[in-house]
């Protein structure tokens, strides 16, 4: 299980391939992955840059708690969460969540659970830099 905050750009599929080497091959049958990326527009505006603020200490603690919760709720072999911080550019990866399990149901459910918990409760805040002003994103879209 690994939770990491990254102040620099990261390549999610490289991270995944690399982290996966630490998991016993032949043990997992299902891997579910979610990658959130920065789009170059939001609510009708071009976004130039984004600032990702977080709460040092609490953010890591919160992400570790949901990763542990997922491990105890489902029969998972491993969980990886990487989240970007600081200044982010369009098309950069913001978040990577991956879970490894024996079967697909657990993998799908746990990855979605982690993303919903992260989106609704993990202490991160986005400030968007538009052409002529900046603004805080006010809330995340609900799970629906």
């Amino acid at each position, binding site marked *: 299980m690994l939770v990491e905050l990254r102040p620099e750009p990261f390549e999610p599929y490289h991270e995944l391939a690399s982290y996966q080497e630490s998991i016993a091959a032949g043990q997992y049958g299902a891997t579910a992955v979610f990658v*959130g990326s920065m789009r170059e527009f939001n609510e009708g505006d071009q976004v130039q840059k984004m600032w*990702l*603020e*977080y*709460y040092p*200490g*609490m953010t890591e*603690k*919160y992400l570790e708690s949901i990763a542990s919760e997922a491990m105890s709720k489902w029969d998972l072999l491993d969980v990886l969460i990487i*989240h970007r911080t600081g200044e982010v550019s369009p098309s950069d990866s*913001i*978040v990577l969540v991956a879970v490894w399990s024996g079967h697909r149901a657990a993998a799908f459910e746990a990855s979605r659970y982690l*993303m919903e918990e*992260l*989106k*609704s*409760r*993990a*202490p*991160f*805040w*986005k*400030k968007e830099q538009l052409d002529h002003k900046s603004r*805080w*994103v*006010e*809330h*995340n879209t609900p799970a629906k």
Partner: protein
Amino acid sequence: MSSQTIQVRFFASLREQLGHGEVEISTDSVETIADVWQRSTDGKQMPVNTLMAINMEYVEASHPVQPGDEVAFFPPVTGG
């Protein structure tokens, strides 16, 4: 003495609105998180949806505080 104070932190838009990210307050007649807000913001109205944490765990406004605690206030989160 730091054990008779509470460290208060504000994040994101709340930090910008209040003009600071961190203050230290004395614990005199401060019993709950709501009291911490009052003391640390000079009685400003708390925005709806403000989230609160004590020692990096989510709590409600009625939660009791103690000297040495770290209390944080922040707007709805927008990560991921």
